[in-house]
């Protein structure tokens, strides 16, 4: 079965990102396909490589990057939500006159159409948020 997942809150502050991560792992373990993970609202803050959590805690951002790489996941950060919150890749940074970017490995920035497409193409769409 083809799942898509929407993550609407940032790492640590709300458990949404943790729950989405564990759901996706379990879905992959059960042989399902993950069509796309879409990060919206504060969820875009899952996609910054600037994060340095305490040593004795999970590294939520790296965990997404690693899961993405291991399973070739499409981790999409919404461009409009990212602009409001200060997440940018190299293209976005250039376009907005920023002196650098901060997107984490394995994430890409794209538009809301990617979310709608996920809703159309997937058998199930799950929303994790606050």
């Amino acid at each position, binding site marked *: 079965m083809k799942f898509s997942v929407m993550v609407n809150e940032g790492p640590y502050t709300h458990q949404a990102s943790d729950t989405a991560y564990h*759901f996706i792992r379990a879905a992959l373990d059960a042989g399902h396909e993950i069509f796309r993970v879409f990060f919206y609202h504060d969820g875009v803050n899952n996609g910054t490589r600037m994060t340095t959590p305490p040593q004795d805690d999970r590294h939520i951002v790296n965990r997404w990057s690693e899961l993405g790489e291991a399973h070739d996941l499409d981790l999409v950060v919404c461009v409009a939500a990212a602009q409001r919150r200060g997440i940018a890749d190299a293209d976005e940074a250039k376009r907005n006159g920023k002196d650098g970017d901060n997107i984490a490995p394995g994430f890409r920035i794209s538009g809301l159409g990617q979310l709608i497409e996920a809703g159309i193409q997937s058998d199930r769409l799950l929303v994790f948020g606050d």
Partner: protein
Amino acid sequence: MLHTVNKSPFDSQSLKTCLGLARSGSDILLIEDGVYGALVGTAHAAMLDQALKEVSIYALGPDLKARGLPEDRLIRGIKVVGFDGFVELASANDKVQSWL
């Protein structure tokens, strides 16, 4: 149809709203702080007892465990599932609605 609820019923209207709109025969999964809704002997337990006559209610085991809520403190009839069970519920139902 699978409904998920991730908020404590003591602070949010999400569980009440969910139960008000879920059709008979629905599956409801309590996750994150939503698992506090599964506790027996609370101000909201009667609402869940009533709901269990019409719907199936599940609670996510890892979230219960994190919060120190053992199975013997849950309302009778609520089933505990892991993330694998969450995936099965999401597959078995035709769609998922998250009451945030």
